[in-house]
Protein backbone atom coordinates (compact mmCIF):
# COMPACT_ATOMS: atom_id res chain seq x y z
CA UNK A 1 0.00 0.00 0.00
CA UNK A 2 1.79 3.07 -1.24
CA UNK A 3 0.02 6.09 0.14
CA UNK A 4 1.92 8.37 -2.27
CA UNK A 5 -0.04 6.88 -5.19
CA UNK A 6 -3.40 7.31 -3.46
CA UNK A 7 -6.10 9.38 -5.14
CA UNK A 8 -9.08 10.83 -3.28
CA UNK A 9 -11.06 7.63 -4.05
CA UNK A 10 -8.39 5.44 -2.48
CA UNK A 11 -8.31 7.56 0.65
CA UNK A 12 -12.08 7.33 0.89
CA UNK A 13 -11.92 3.56 0.71
CA UNK A 14 -9.32 3.30 3.43
CA UNK A 15 -11.01 2.42 6.74
CA UNK A 16 -8.40 4.17 8.82
CA UNK A 17 -8.85 7.35 6.78
CA UNK A 18 -12.61 7.24 7.28
CA UNK A 19 -12.11 6.86 11.03
CA UNK A 20 -9.84 9.91 10.85
CA UNK A 21 -12.55 11.92 9.06
CA UNK A 22 -15.15 10.93 11.64
CA UNK A 23 -12.59 11.33 14.45
CA UNK A 24 -13.75 8.04 15.89
CA UNK A 25 -10.30 6.69 16.69
CA UNK A 26 -7.49 8.72 18.27
CA UNK A 27 -4.68 6.67 16.74
CA UNK A 28 -6.02 7.14 13.22
CA UNK A 29 -6.53 10.85 13.81
CA UNK A 30 -2.95 11.19 15.03
CA UNK A 31 -1.59 9.12 12.14
CA UNK A 32 -3.35 11.08 9.39
CA UNK A 33 -2.72 14.48 10.91
CA UNK A 34 0.95 13.63 10.97
CA UNK A 35 0.95 12.07 7.51
CA UNK A 36 -0.84 15.01 5.88
CA UNK A 37 1.49 17.45 7.59
CA UNK A 38 4.46 15.57 6.17
CA UNK A 39 2.92 15.27 2.69
CA UNK A 40 1.52 18.68 1.86
CA UNK A 41 1.39 17.83 -1.85
CA UNK A 42 -1.36 15.31 -1.10
CA UNK A 43 -3.49 17.77 0.81
CA UNK A 44 -5.85 18.55 -2.09
CA UNK A 45 -6.62 14.85 -2.46
CA UNK A 46 -7.12 14.21 1.25
CA UNK A 47 -9.25 17.33 1.65
CA UNK A 48 -11.53 16.23 -1.15
CA UNK A 49 -11.70 12.70 0.19
CA UNK A 50 -12.65 14.02 3.61
CA UNK A 51 -15.31 16.28 2.19
CA UNK A 52 -16.87 13.37 0.31
CA UNK A 53 -16.73 11.00 3.26
CA UNK A 54 -18.64 13.55 5.31
CA UNK A 55 -21.05 14.34 2.47
CA UNK A 56 -21.96 10.69 1.82
CA UNK A 57 -22.13 9.91 5.54
CA UNK A 58 -24.41 12.88 6.11
CA UNK A 59 -23.40 13.00 9.74
CA UNK A 60 -22.29 16.15 11.46
CA UNK A 61 -18.64 17.05 11.28
CA UNK A 62 -16.79 16.59 14.58
CA UNK A 63 -16.75 20.37 15.02
CA UNK A 64 -20.47 20.70 14.50
CA UNK A 65 -21.05 17.88 16.94
CA UNK A 66 -18.84 19.57 19.52
CA UNK A 67 -20.84 22.74 19.05
CA UNK A 68 -24.10 20.86 19.73
CA UNK A 69 -22.59 19.26 22.77
CA UNK A 70 -21.54 22.62 24.16
CA UNK A 71 -25.10 23.85 23.71
CA UNK A 72 -26.41 20.86 25.61
CA UNK A 73 -23.93 21.40 28.42
CA UNK A 74 -24.85 25.04 28.71
CA UNK A 75 -28.52 24.04 28.93
CA UNK A 76 -27.93 21.31 31.51
CA UNK A 77 -25.67 23.39 33.67
CA UNK A 78 -28.00 26.37 33.79
CA UNK A 79 -30.79 24.16 35.09
CA UNK A 80 -31.33 23.32 38.76
CA UNK A 81 -28.38 20.95 38.41
CA UNK A 82 -25.96 20.01 41.09
CA UNK A 83 -27.56 20.04 44.42
CA UNK A 84 -25.66 17.01 45.58
CA UNK A 85 -22.26 18.22 44.58
CA UNK A 86 -20.85 19.12 47.98
CA UNK A 87 -22.95 16.78 50.03
CA UNK A 88 -20.15 14.31 50.55
CA UNK A 89 -17.87 16.89 52.17
CA UNK A 90 -20.49 18.61 54.23
CA UNK A 91 -20.50 16.36 57.29
CA UNK A 92 -16.73 16.88 57.63
CA UNK A 93 -16.84 20.60 57.00
CA UNK A 94 -19.67 20.95 59.48
CA UNK A 95 -17.90 18.85 62.07
CA UNK A 96 -14.68 20.81 61.63
CA UNK A 97 -16.50 24.12 61.74
CA UNK A 98 -18.33 23.06 64.86
CA UNK A 99 -15.09 22.15 66.57
CA UNK A 100 -13.37 25.37 65.55
CA UNK A 101 -16.49 27.26 66.50
CA UNK A 102 -16.57 25.81 69.98
CA UNK A 103 -12.89 26.43 70.62
CA UNK A 104 -12.84 29.96 69.24
CA UNK A 105 -15.96 30.98 71.08
CA UNK A 106 -14.66 29.58 74.27
CA UNK A 107 -11.31 31.36 74.04
CA UNK A 108 -12.91 34.59 73.05
CA UNK A 109 -15.68 34.42 75.62
CA UNK A 110 -13.56 33.66 78.66
CA UNK A 111 -12.49 37.22 79.45
CA UNK A 112 -15.92 38.61 78.54
CA UNK A 113 -18.42 39.82 81.10
CA UNK A 114 -20.83 36.93 80.85
CA UNK A 115 -19.66 33.44 80.15
CA UNK A 116 -22.22 31.21 78.51
CA UNK A 117 -22.66 27.80 80.05
CA UNK A 118 -20.93 25.01 78.18
CA UNK A 119 -24.17 23.06 78.10
CA UNK A 120 -25.72 25.82 75.99
CA UNK A 121 -23.23 25.19 73.17
CA UNK A 122 -25.70 23.62 70.80
CA UNK A 123 -25.87 25.05 67.29
CA UNK A 124 -28.08 25.24 64.33
CA UNK A 125 -25.89 24.98 61.27
CA UNK A 126 -26.67 26.69 57.98
CA UNK A 127 -24.75 25.66 54.93
CA UNK A 128 -24.72 27.16 51.50
CA UNK A 129 -22.97 24.86 49.10
CA UNK A 130 -23.56 25.52 45.42
CA UNK A 131 -25.88 28.51 45.77
CA UNK A 132 -26.09 31.29 48.29
CA UNK A 133 -28.62 31.09 51.06
CA UNK A 134 -30.57 33.69 52.98
CA UNK A 135 -31.11 33.06 56.66
CA UNK A 136 -33.60 34.95 58.81
CA UNK A 137 -32.57 34.92 62.45
CA UNK A 138 -34.82 34.99 65.53
CA UNK A 139 -34.27 38.71 66.15
CA UNK A 140 -35.20 39.69 62.60
CA UNK A 141 -31.60 40.06 61.40
CA UNK A 142 -30.85 38.70 57.96
CA UNK A 143 -27.74 36.82 56.91
CA UNK A 144 -26.90 36.11 53.29
CA UNK A 145 -24.57 33.19 53.26
CA UNK A 146 -22.35 33.03 50.21
CA UNK A 147 -21.57 29.87 48.32
CA UNK A 148 -19.39 27.34 50.04
CA UNK A 149 -19.96 28.84 53.49
CA UNK A 150 -21.14 27.62 56.87
CA UNK A 151 -22.89 29.66 59.55
CA UNK A 152 -23.37 28.43 63.10
CA UNK A 153 -26.14 29.86 65.18
CA UNK A 154 -25.99 28.90 68.86
CA UNK A 155 -29.32 27.86 70.34
CA UNK A 156 -29.09 30.66 72.89
CA UNK A 157 -28.91 33.25 70.13
CA UNK A 158 -30.97 36.34 70.94
CA UNK A 159 -31.29 35.55 74.65
CA UNK A 160 -28.59 37.69 76.26
CA UNK A 161 -26.48 38.16 73.20
CA UNK A 162 -26.40 37.41 69.51
CA UNK A 163 -23.32 35.52 68.53
CA UNK A 164 -22.63 33.80 65.22
CA UNK A 165 -19.74 31.76 63.88
CA UNK A 166 -18.79 31.93 60.26
CA UNK A 167 -16.65 30.00 57.89
CA UNK A 168 -16.66 31.43 54.40
CA UNK A 169 -18.46 34.65 53.57
CA UNK A 170 -21.67 36.30 54.70
CA UNK A 171 -23.50 39.58 54.56
CA UNK A 172 -25.28 40.68 57.73
CA UNK A 173 -28.19 43.03 58.08
CA UNK A 174 -28.44 43.44 61.80
CA UNK A 175 -31.72 44.35 63.49
CA UNK A 176 -31.34 46.99 66.21
CA UNK A 177 -31.69 45.60 69.70
CA UNK A 178 -30.54 47.45 72.80
CA UNK A 179 -28.37 45.58 75.28
CA UNK A 180 -28.05 42.58 73.09
CA UNK A 181 -24.73 42.79 71.24
CA UNK A 182 -24.41 41.17 67.83
CA UNK A 183 -21.08 39.49 67.21
CA UNK A 184 -19.60 37.34 64.49
CA UNK A 185 -16.51 35.23 64.93
CA UNK A 186 -14.45 34.07 61.99
CA UNK A 187 -11.23 32.34 62.87
CA UNK A 188 -9.50 34.59 65.40
CA UNK A 189 -11.35 37.72 64.36
CA UNK A 190 -14.51 38.97 65.94
CA UNK A 191 -16.82 41.66 64.68
CA UNK A 192 -19.24 43.43 66.98
CA UNK A 193 -22.15 45.35 65.55
CA UNK A 194 -25.24 47.34 66.44
CA UNK A 195 -27.91 48.00 63.81
CA UNK A 196 -25.57 47.71 60.86
CA UNK A 197 -25.01 46.09 57.52
CA UNK A 198 -21.65 44.49 57.04
CA UNK A 199 -19.92 41.60 55.38
CA UNK A 200 -17.33 39.17 56.64
CA UNK A 201 -15.17 37.12 54.32
CA UNK A 202 -13.12 34.33 55.85
CA UNK A 203 -12.57 31.52 53.39
CA UNK A 204 -10.19 28.72 54.09
CA UNK A 205 -8.18 29.41 50.93
CA UNK A 206 -7.51 32.97 52.01
CA UNK A 207 -5.28 33.43 55.07
CA UNK A 208 -6.79 36.80 55.95
CA UNK A 209 -10.25 37.73 57.18
CA UNK A 210 -11.93 40.70 55.58
CA UNK A 211 -14.70 42.80 57.09
CA UNK A 212 -16.55 45.39 54.99
CA UNK A 213 -18.97 47.85 56.55
CA UNK A 214 -21.86 48.97 54.39
CA UNK A 215 -23.77 51.04 56.95
CA UNK A 216 -23.82 51.67 60.70
CA UNK A 217 -20.88 50.85 62.88
CA UNK A 218 -18.81 47.79 63.70
CA UNK A 219 -15.87 47.05 65.91
CA UNK A 220 -13.40 44.47 64.68
CA UNK A 221 -11.27 42.60 67.15
CA UNK A 222 -8.29 40.75 65.74
CA UNK A 223 -5.67 38.84 67.70
CA UNK A 224 -3.41 41.84 68.31
CA UNK A 225 -5.51 44.86 67.46
CA UNK A 226 -9.02 46.30 67.44
CA UNK A 227 -10.57 48.86 65.12
CA UNK A 228 -13.86 50.65 64.58
CA UNK A 229 -15.04 50.98 61.02
CA UNK A 230 -17.07 53.67 59.35
CA UNK A 231 -19.27 52.97 56.28
CA UNK A 232 -17.56 52.03 53.00
CA UNK A 233 -14.46 51.03 54.91
CA UNK A 234 -13.00 47.57 55.15
CA UNK A 235 -10.29 45.95 57.22
CA UNK A 236 -8.22 42.91 56.48
CA UNK A 237 -6.35 40.88 59.06
CA UNK A 238 -2.67 40.30 58.40
CA UNK A 239 -0.81 38.40 61.09
CA UNK A 240 -3.25 39.48 63.76
CA UNK A 241 -3.08 43.13 62.72
CA UNK A 242 -5.60 45.16 60.80
CA UNK A 243 -5.13 46.91 57.47
CA UNK A 244 -7.90 49.22 56.39
CA UNK A 245 -9.05 50.63 53.07
CA UNK A 246 -12.17 51.62 51.15
CA UNK A 247 -14.15 49.36 48.88
CA UNK A 248 -16.40 49.75 45.88
CA UNK A 249 -19.86 50.20 47.41
CA UNK A 250 -21.71 49.55 44.15
CA UNK A 251 -19.95 46.25 43.73
CA UNK A 252 -20.99 45.19 47.22
CA UNK A 253 -24.55 46.36 46.64
CA UNK A 254 -24.67 44.36 43.40
CA UNK A 255 -23.44 41.35 45.29
CA UNK A 256 -26.21 41.89 47.82
CA UNK A 257 -28.79 42.00 45.05
CA UNK A 258 -27.38 38.92 43.37
CA UNK A 259 -26.33 40.79 40.23
CA UNK A 260 -23.09 39.73 38.66
CA UNK A 261 -21.86 41.93 35.84
CA UNK A 262 -19.00 41.58 33.43
CA UNK A 263 -18.24 44.52 31.23
CA UNK A 264 -15.51 44.00 28.67
CA UNK A 265 -13.77 41.83 31.24
CA UNK A 266 -10.25 40.56 30.63
CA UNK A 267 -9.16 37.13 31.77
CA UNK A 268 -7.77 38.55 35.03
CA UNK A 269 -10.91 40.55 35.74
CA UNK A 270 -12.98 37.48 35.05
CA UNK A 271 -10.97 35.40 37.50
CA UNK A 272 -10.96 38.13 40.11
CA UNK A 273 -14.70 38.69 39.87
CA UNK A 274 -15.50 34.97 40.13
CA UNK A 275 -13.27 34.63 43.17
CA UNK A 276 -14.89 37.63 44.81
CA UNK A 277 -18.40 36.64 43.90
CA UNK A 278 -18.53 32.94 44.57
CA UNK A 279 -15.85 32.58 47.21
CA UNK A 280 -13.82 30.09 45.27
CA UNK A 281 -10.07 30.08 44.72
CA UNK A 282 -9.35 30.70 41.02
CA UNK A 283 -6.16 29.56 39.30
CA UNK A 284 -5.19 30.65 35.80
CA UNK A 285 -2.95 28.10 34.16
CA UNK A 286 0.00 29.97 32.61
CA UNK A 287 0.04 30.08 28.82
CA UNK A 288 -0.74 32.19 25.80
CA UNK A 289 -4.33 33.28 25.93
CA UNK A 290 -6.30 35.01 23.23
CA UNK A 291 -7.37 38.44 24.49
CA UNK A 292 -10.79 38.18 26.13
CA UNK A 293 -13.51 40.80 26.32
CA UNK A 294 -16.32 39.16 28.16
CA UNK A 295 -19.67 40.81 28.65
CA UNK A 296 -22.49 39.35 30.62
CA UNK A 297 -25.04 39.84 33.31
CA UNK A 298 -26.19 37.14 35.69
CA UNK A 299 -28.88 37.52 38.30
CA UNK A 300 -28.86 34.97 41.10
CA UNK A 301 -27.22 32.31 38.99
CA UNK A 302 -25.34 29.41 40.51
CA UNK A 303 -21.67 29.12 39.68
CA UNK A 304 -21.97 26.18 37.23
CA UNK A 305 -24.42 28.15 35.10
CA UNK A 306 -22.11 31.14 34.95
CA UNK A 307 -19.14 28.94 34.13
CA UNK A 308 -21.05 27.19 31.36
CA UNK A 309 -21.88 30.52 29.75
CA UNK A 310 -18.35 31.84 30.10
CA UNK A 311 -16.73 28.76 28.63
CA UNK A 312 -19.34 28.62 25.88
CA UNK A 313 -18.63 32.18 24.81
CA UNK A 314 -14.89 32.51 25.44
CA UNK A 315 -13.87 28.95 24.61
CA UNK A 316 -11.90 28.81 27.86
CA UNK A 317 -11.75 25.47 29.59
CA UNK A 318 -12.90 25.85 33.16
CA UNK A 319 -12.78 23.00 35.61
CA UNK A 320 -13.59 22.76 39.29
CA UNK A 321 -11.36 20.44 41.22
CA UNK A 322 -11.35 19.97 44.98
CA UNK A 323 -13.37 23.12 45.46
CA UNK A 324 -10.96 25.28 43.45
CA UNK A 325 -11.38 26.63 39.97
CA UNK A 326 -8.89 26.13 37.17
CA UNK A 327 -8.93 28.18 33.97
CA UNK A 328 -7.20 26.77 30.93
CA UNK A 329 -7.01 27.84 27.31
Amino acid at each position, binding site marked *: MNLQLFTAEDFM*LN*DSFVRYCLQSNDEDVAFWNDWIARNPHKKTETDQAKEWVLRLG*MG*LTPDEKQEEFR*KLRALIETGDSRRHRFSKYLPYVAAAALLIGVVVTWIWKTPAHHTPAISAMAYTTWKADSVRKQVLLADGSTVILNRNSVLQVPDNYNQQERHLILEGEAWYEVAKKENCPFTVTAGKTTVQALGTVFKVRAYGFDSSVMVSLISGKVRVQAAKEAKELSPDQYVKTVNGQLLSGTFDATREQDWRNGKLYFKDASLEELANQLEFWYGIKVHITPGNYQPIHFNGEFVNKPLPAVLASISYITNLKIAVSKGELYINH
Partner: protein
Amino acid sequence: MALSPADKNISHLPESDSQRAAGEGLAVFWSELQQHNEHGLYKIYHELYDNLYRYGLSVVQDPQLVKEAINDVFVELWKKREQLIMPDHIPNYIFICFKRRLSKLLGKEQKKSGRHESLLFQELEVQPYETVLISRETDIQLRNKMENVLAQLTARQKEFIRLRFYENMSMEEISLKTSASIRTIYNTLHTAIVQLRKIMSLFLLTLMWYFEK
Protein backbone atom coordinates in the same frame (compact mmCIF):
# COMPACT_ATOMS: atom_id res chain seq x y z
CA MET B 1 -42.57 0.79 28.04
CA ALA B 2 -44.84 -0.86 25.48
CA LEU B 3 -43.97 -0.41 21.85
CA SER B 4 -46.75 0.68 19.57
CA PRO B 5 -46.71 -0.98 16.13
CA ALA B 6 -45.39 2.25 14.67
CA ASP B 7 -42.32 2.07 16.83
CA LYS B 8 -41.18 -1.24 15.47
CA ASN B 9 -39.34 0.05 12.45
CA ILE B 10 -36.30 1.28 14.30
CA SER B 11 -34.10 -0.11 11.64
CA HIS B 12 -31.42 2.45 12.34
CA LEU B 13 -30.37 0.68 15.47
CA PRO B 14 -27.46 -1.53 14.58
CA GLU B 15 -27.34 -4.69 16.61
CA SER B 16 -23.84 -5.92 15.93
CA ASP B 17 -21.83 -7.38 18.81
CA SER B 18 -19.83 -4.24 19.41
CA GLN B 19 -23.02 -2.25 19.63
CA ARG B 20 -24.48 -4.66 22.13
CA ALA B 21 -21.42 -4.29 24.31
CA ALA B 22 -21.88 -0.54 24.08
CA GLY B 23 -25.48 -1.09 25.23
CA GLU B 24 -24.21 -2.60 28.45
CA GLY B 25 -21.94 0.39 28.97
CA LEU B 26 -25.00 2.57 28.55
CA ALA B 27 -26.59 0.93 31.58
CA VAL B 28 -23.66 2.14 33.69
CA PHE B 29 -24.00 5.66 32.29
CA TRP B 30 -27.72 5.54 32.92
CA SER B 31 -27.25 4.78 36.60
CA GLU B 32 -24.75 7.66 36.81
CA LEU B 33 -27.45 9.87 35.36
CA GLN B 34 -29.90 8.66 38.01
CA GLN B 35 -27.33 9.60 40.63
CA HIS B 36 -27.35 13.19 39.37
CA ASN B 37 -24.05 12.85 37.57
CA GLU B 38 -24.39 14.78 34.30
CA HIS B 39 -21.38 12.99 32.85
CA GLY B 40 -23.43 9.81 32.59
CA LEU B 41 -25.87 11.74 30.44
CA TYR B 42 -23.05 13.16 28.31
CA LYS B 43 -21.63 9.70 27.65
CA ILE B 44 -24.99 8.39 26.47
CA TYR B 45 -25.26 11.45 24.27
CA HIS B 46 -21.92 10.80 22.57
CA GLU B 47 -22.74 7.14 22.21
CA LEU B 48 -26.05 7.66 20.43
CA TYR B 49 -25.65 11.02 18.72
CA ASP B 50 -24.72 9.82 15.22
CA ASN B 51 -27.52 7.27 15.06
CA LEU B 52 -30.08 9.75 16.28
CA TYR B 53 -28.89 12.42 13.89
CA ARG B 54 -28.96 10.15 10.85
CA TYR B 55 -32.33 8.78 11.71
CA GLY B 56 -33.65 12.30 12.28
CA LEU B 57 -32.34 13.46 8.94
CA SER B 58 -34.01 10.58 7.15
CA VAL B 59 -37.36 11.66 8.56
CA VAL B 60 -37.06 15.44 8.52
CA GLN B 61 -34.67 16.92 5.99
CA ASP B 62 -33.86 19.80 8.29
CA PRO B 63 -30.55 19.51 10.16
CA GLN B 64 -31.39 22.42 12.47
CA LEU B 65 -34.63 20.83 13.61
CA VAL B 66 -32.97 17.47 14.12
CA LYS B 67 -30.15 18.94 16.23
CA GLU B 68 -32.64 20.84 18.32
CA ALA B 69 -34.75 17.75 18.90
CA ILE B 70 -31.77 15.69 20.05
CA ASN B 71 -30.70 18.27 22.62
CA ASP B 72 -34.29 18.66 23.82
CA VAL B 73 -34.52 14.94 24.49
CA PHE B 74 -31.37 14.97 26.61
CA VAL B 75 -32.34 18.08 28.55
CA GLU B 76 -35.66 16.39 29.27
CA LEU B 77 -33.92 13.23 30.48
CA TRP B 78 -31.79 15.33 32.82
CA LYS B 79 -34.82 17.15 34.22
CA LYS B 80 -36.67 13.91 34.85
CA ARG B 81 -33.69 11.96 36.17
CA GLU B 82 -35.33 11.49 39.53
CA GLN B 83 -38.39 9.73 38.15
CA LEU B 84 -36.48 7.67 35.59
CA ILE B 85 -36.33 3.93 35.81
CA MET B 86 -33.81 1.83 33.94
CA PRO B 87 -35.40 0.94 30.59
CA ASP B 88 -35.02 -2.56 29.16
CA HIS B 89 -33.26 -1.23 26.12
CA ILE B 90 -31.77 2.23 26.55
CA PRO B 91 -31.20 3.10 22.86
CA ASN B 92 -34.77 2.07 22.00
CA TYR B 93 -36.14 4.12 24.83
CA ILE B 94 -34.23 7.21 23.78
CA PHE B 95 -35.17 6.64 20.14
CA ILE B 96 -38.84 6.62 21.03
CA CYS B 97 -38.45 9.83 23.05
CA PHE B 98 -36.63 11.32 20.07
CA LYS B 99 -39.34 10.32 17.59
CA ARG B 100 -42.02 11.88 19.78
CA ARG B 101 -39.99 15.06 20.07
CA LEU B 102 -39.50 15.19 16.31
CA SER B 103 -43.24 14.79 15.62
CA LYS B 104 -43.97 17.51 18.11
CA LEU B 105 -41.48 19.95 16.57
CA LEU B 106 -42.69 19.04 13.11
CA GLY B 107 -46.27 19.71 14.19
CA LYS B 108 -45.27 23.15 15.42
CA GLU B 109 -43.52 23.97 12.15
CA GLN B 110 -46.56 22.94 10.16
CA LYS B 111 -48.83 24.98 12.37
CA LYS B 112 -46.63 28.00 11.69
CA SER B 113 -46.83 27.45 7.97
CA GLY B 114 -50.61 27.17 8.22
CA ARG B 115 -51.09 23.47 7.68
CA HIS B 116 -53.44 22.25 10.36
CA GLU B 117 -54.43 18.83 9.20
CA SER B 118 -53.41 15.61 10.94
CA LEU B 119 -51.22 17.09 13.63
CA LEU B 120 -52.03 14.34 16.03
CA PHE B 121 -49.96 11.19 15.87
CA GLN B 122 -48.70 11.74 12.41
CA GLU B 123 -46.46 8.91 11.41
CA LEU B 124 -42.90 9.81 10.62
CA GLU B 125 -41.93 8.60 7.21
CA VAL B 126 -38.40 7.41 6.66
CA GLN B 127 -37.00 8.63 3.37
CA PRO B 128 -34.53 6.50 1.42
CA TYR B 129 -30.85 7.37 1.56
CA GLU B 130 -30.77 8.89 -1.92
CA THR B 131 -33.58 11.33 -1.20
CA VAL B 132 -31.89 12.51 1.96
CA LEU B 133 -28.54 12.83 0.23
CA ILE B 134 -30.06 14.97 -2.51
CA SER B 135 -32.01 17.10 -0.07
CA ARG B 136 -28.79 17.95 1.73
CA GLU B 137 -27.58 20.03 -1.20
CA THR B 138 -28.98 23.47 -0.69
CA ASP B 139 -28.04 24.81 -4.09
CA ILE B 140 -30.86 23.94 -6.51
CA GLN B 141 -28.58 23.35 -9.49
CA LEU B 142 -26.23 21.24 -7.42
CA ARG B 143 -29.18 19.32 -6.10
CA ASN B 144 -30.46 18.53 -9.60
CA LYS B 145 -26.99 17.48 -10.61
CA MET B 146 -26.68 15.20 -7.61
CA GLU B 147 -30.02 13.68 -8.48
CA ASN B 148 -28.84 12.98 -12.04
CA VAL B 149 -25.56 11.49 -10.92
CA LEU B 150 -27.21 9.20 -8.43
CA ALA B 151 -29.70 8.11 -11.07
CA GLN B 152 -26.78 6.96 -13.21
CA LEU B 153 -25.39 4.71 -10.49
CA THR B 154 -26.56 1.12 -10.30
CA ALA B 155 -28.64 -0.07 -7.36
CA ARG B 156 -25.72 -2.12 -6.12
CA GLN B 157 -23.33 0.84 -6.22
CA LYS B 158 -25.78 2.95 -4.24
CA GLU B 159 -26.33 0.15 -1.75
CA PHE B 160 -22.59 -0.18 -1.10
CA ILE B 161 -22.15 3.56 -0.71
CA ARG B 162 -24.98 3.67 1.78
CA LEU B 163 -23.61 0.74 3.81
CA ARG B 164 -20.03 2.00 3.82
CA PHE B 165 -20.43 5.73 4.40
CA TYR B 166 -23.89 6.11 5.90
CA GLU B 167 -24.25 2.98 8.01
CA ASN B 168 -20.50 3.16 8.59
CA MET B 169 -20.01 -0.58 8.12
CA SER B 170 -16.53 -1.92 7.45
CA MET B 171 -15.73 -3.73 4.21
CA GLU B 172 -15.84 -7.05 6.11
CA GLU B 173 -19.27 -6.29 7.53
CA ILE B 174 -20.60 -5.33 4.10
CA SER B 175 -19.17 -8.52 2.69
CA LEU B 176 -20.92 -10.58 5.36
CA LYS B 177 -24.19 -8.78 4.83
CA THR B 178 -24.28 -8.86 1.02
CA SER B 179 -22.15 -11.99 0.44
CA ALA B 180 -20.08 -10.09 -2.12
CA SER B 181 -16.31 -10.43 -1.91
CA ILE B 182 -14.29 -7.59 -0.40
CA ARG B 183 -12.49 -7.17 -3.72
CA THR B 184 -15.82 -6.72 -5.55
CA ILE B 185 -17.09 -4.26 -2.98
CA TYR B 186 -13.89 -2.27 -3.20
CA ASN B 187 -13.94 -2.10 -6.99
CA THR B 188 -17.64 -1.30 -7.20
CA LEU B 189 -17.26 1.51 -4.68
CA HIS B 190 -14.17 2.84 -6.41
CA THR B 191 -15.89 3.13 -9.79
CA ALA B 192 -18.96 4.69 -8.21
CA ILE B 193 -16.97 7.34 -6.37
CA VAL B 194 -14.90 8.21 -9.43
CA GLN B 195 -18.14 8.70 -11.36
CA LEU B 196 -19.71 10.79 -8.62
CA ARG B 197 -16.70 13.00 -8.19
CA LYS B 198 -16.02 13.43 -11.88
CA ILE B 199 -19.48 14.68 -12.73
CA MET B 200 -19.83 16.80 -9.63
CA SER B 201 -16.43 18.46 -9.88
CA LEU B 202 -16.92 19.09 -13.60
CA PHE B 203 -20.19 20.71 -12.74
CA LEU B 204 -18.56 22.81 -10.02
CA LEU B 205 -15.85 23.88 -12.46
CA THR B 206 -18.33 25.03 -15.09
CA LEU B 207 -20.27 26.80 -12.40
CA MET B 208 -17.13 28.68 -11.36
CA TRP B 209 -16.29 29.48 -14.94
CA TYR B 210 -19.84 30.73 -15.43
CA PHE B 211 -19.58 33.06 -12.46
CA GLU B 212 -16.18 34.39 -13.41
CA LYS B 213 -17.42 35.48 -16.79
